[in-house]
């Protein structure tokens, strides 16, 4: 049998102590040891991004992380983004903008954008696209995810004291493609 180690960590503000095989991935630990199945596994080689979780506030691929590497850390998964039954602003924006279809890539999109919006509260369309360029979605064609991120950014700015100035362009009401086309033409 493989070696086991005991780890202590905080997940969605709850403390856990577990003895686990050293080779267990963080994704499998969350999903199969703790039954936190909201984190999804899509490729197991770090490309699709579905398994992305926040480790001490930073995005990390749970499929490429060993659970023992997370010892002592504080992790947020999709289950930790909502307050009880109420959706958080980003989750609500995903619902409002039809930014998910099958919902399998969604956990990674939400965690990735949570980190991104915390650092970039007033992003452009292009910046959002780059931020999620490491997350594959096969259903949506991404556009509605971009719209959701922009909606959430706006909501967060409006509800967070001392947030930056409102966006100059309301991306939700603007024909995104034309704007992108115009930018392309200006380059």
């Amino acid at each position, binding site marked *: 049998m493989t070696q086991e180690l005991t780890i202590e960590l905080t997940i969605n503000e709850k403390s856990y102590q577990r003895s686990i095989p050293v080779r267990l991935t963080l994704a499998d630990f969350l999903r199969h040891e703790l039954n936190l199945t909201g984190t999804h596994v899509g490729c197991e080689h770090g490309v699709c991004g579905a398994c992305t979780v926040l480790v001490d506030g930073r995005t990390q691929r749970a499929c490429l992380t060993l659970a023992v590497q997370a010892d002592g850390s504080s992790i947020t998964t*999709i289950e930790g983004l*909502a307050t009880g039954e109420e959706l958080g602003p980003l989750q609500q924006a995903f619902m409002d903008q039809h930014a998910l*279809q099958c*919902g*399998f890539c*969604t956990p990674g999109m939400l965690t990735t954008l949570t980190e991104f919006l915390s650092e970039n509260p007033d992003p452009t369309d292009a910046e959002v696209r780059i931020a999620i360029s490491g997350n594959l979605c096969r259903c949506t064609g991404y556009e509605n995810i971009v719209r959701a991120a922009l909606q959430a950014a706006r909501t967060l700015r409006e509800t967070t004291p001392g947030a930056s100035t409102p966006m100059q362009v309301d991306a939700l009401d603007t024909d995104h493609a034309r704007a*992108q086309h115009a930018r392309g033409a200006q380059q």
Partner: protein
Amino acid sequence: MSSTWVGTSVKRVEDPALLSGRGQFVDDIHIPDTLHAAFVRSPHAHARIKSIDASAARQLEGVVAVYTYADMPETLRTNTLPNLQPNPLLRHSMMPHALCADEVCYVGAAIAVVLANDRYIAEDALEHIVVDYQTLAGAVDVVDALKPGAATAHAELADNLAADINLGYGEDAAAFNGAAHIVRGKFVQHRGTAHPIECRAVQAQFDTLTQTMRIWTNTQTPHLYKGSYAELMEVPEQQVHVIAPDVGGGFGPKVVLYPEQFVVPACALLTGRAVKWTEDRREHFISATMERDQHWDGELALNADGTLRGLRARMLHDMGAHAMWGLVTPWISCTTVPGPYVLPSYKMHCQVVMTNKVAVTPVRGAGRPQAAYFIERMLDRAAEVVGLERDEIRRRNYVQPEQMPYEVGLIFRDGRPVIYDTGDYPALQKMALVRSDWNTFKQRQAAARAEGRYIGIGIASYIEATGLGPYEGSSVHVMRNGKVIVHTGAAPQGQGHQTMIGQVVADALGVNMSEITVKTSDTVTIPRGIGTFASRITPNASPAAHQAAISVQQKLKKVAAHMLEAAAEDLDVADGRVFVRGVAEHGKSFAEVARFANSLPGFALPKGLDPVLQETVYFAPEQATYPCGTHVAEVEVDPELGAVKILRYVTAHDCGTIINPASVEGQVMGGVAHGIGNALLERMEYDDNGQPLTVNFGEYLLPTAPSVPAVEQEHMESPTPLNPLGAKGAGEGGTIPAIAVIVSAVEDALTPFKVHINNVPMTPESLLDNISANTGAQS
């Protein structure tokens, strides 16, 4: 009947759970004491298995069993997997056993299964299983595979021809003899696959109490699977229970039935424990079905004014090693070629070829993207030769709205004639041209060229046969508490069927959507079903739900009429209440009506009343219905890098009555993104021995957010008369013309280099080769 819900972008009832990590996908289901399966797969494209030595693997701690073909139940040794689409033209379907008996015919074929206490140990054990192979020559390239004396994909076959399809109509010789122009073209569409972000998964548990095999699997066709499983395993259907819980995307390959879906339940029987298998992505790359490999070669005859006279073509279709979905894909390709155009004569010869690759079965679009790519490329070439603009040559050939219903002269894959039901193809083109600023593009292009930039615009039109039969069912039940439960054969993978069907029932029944629960994808809740493919759920399952709800409303009225001492004809229904027309307070709630109908034990029900406010309807369409549209794309090509950037993408789309506009737009956007992948990125490479070379997402590229533009959408609604809702289905229209339109735009951008693109995907390397071949020729 008022329309409150249908036609509005109702927020999806599916979303709250999926957004908070409470979705329930197959791999999320934990049954105590489950065994975990891992499969030994063939590393060779064609080989004979001489021996399998699993003795070392069986000794590993935590390994419970290793099974090969010889250990499978007798039913899985005598029966092969079912070809779910038999066709008399198919010379041989060569369906495999669940575990290979002695010959493997593609890399990835399942040979043995390890069952262990956890997946890690099961995968450890794979390394200890020694399979001795005798490799065999095989068929890899579809063109070479047809040559006389070519090595065959199956040792017992004399050649690789699986089927010859000849179809067409009209006077071919006359069409070509009198032609002012004859345009020739050869085009290749490369293989690509669906890649839902959730890989395949099966979990099975045999319930000894009820003697029921319960299977959770992320299939698009739970009912089809249940029936096939019962037949193959020779057990009564009522002892098989299939559940497709939340499914993380499908796009076609989750329609067909796979070896693992039979082996995993067999393992549950053999071990007496629950067994789970979740595919990893590498396995998906080598063992999930794919599509799109086709070679087209054709001639188009035209009059001097650019109107079509006739088309003759030959096509090679690579079906891979097994006919898992019969001849459906090539048949759809062949019958989709005439598209939205009046084509007076058509002569098609398609050869379906077996190769040592994983089976080809429908992927989003199902043969239609290749057909659209072929005819649309031919039309672009024809425009060049005749001297017409690309939009004009199409306008001169569209089937006109007054010609509807328009009979093409072909038999579709549903066995019925191809008859376009409704649609205004010229108007759709106009919508796309206006939205895309088509008429001013030449100025934009000239300005860009002056700056040294190469921009181009492309256009493609399409039709799509959707809503295929034989039927789909929905059952509507007003329960004693007044709430409504709907069960349906629809099996979604992200399409939002629960929301869509809920909208239809809310309107037809007269109740708020919040009172309705729609349950899908569970074979015990509705006895019969087919499944989700061919954009067939909206035009089949929702008319069924609509009709069932109307029938239940009549039952509600009958009971309420008795309670209110009024005539049923004088009653209205709204907001979950039945009331006397014009006197809203004189009425009964659904709960009151349902309790009355259900009555008290032992009491007699008033004559003529139905005790259960429930109805099940199976809607069986007469024939396919035909969504249609035109796409326009504007691209910029960097001729030094071979890079293509899509600047704008416009669709004008008609899928009949729209039930949920946001869902339709989402389907179109996602469909376009899939087509962009096929046009520019997705390349499933094999070496000369049939060894897959692109088996991870670093080697096989899917579209990412920066590579997919926003899709600007226009919609027209031409309801079909083929179902009471007029809805046609929207799952694939985004994908079908996307390859054609992007190639058209790239060729246009590269006009100065006189580039003709005959092969997609247009990777940077292939574009640079193409450009340098032409610039080399010029210098």
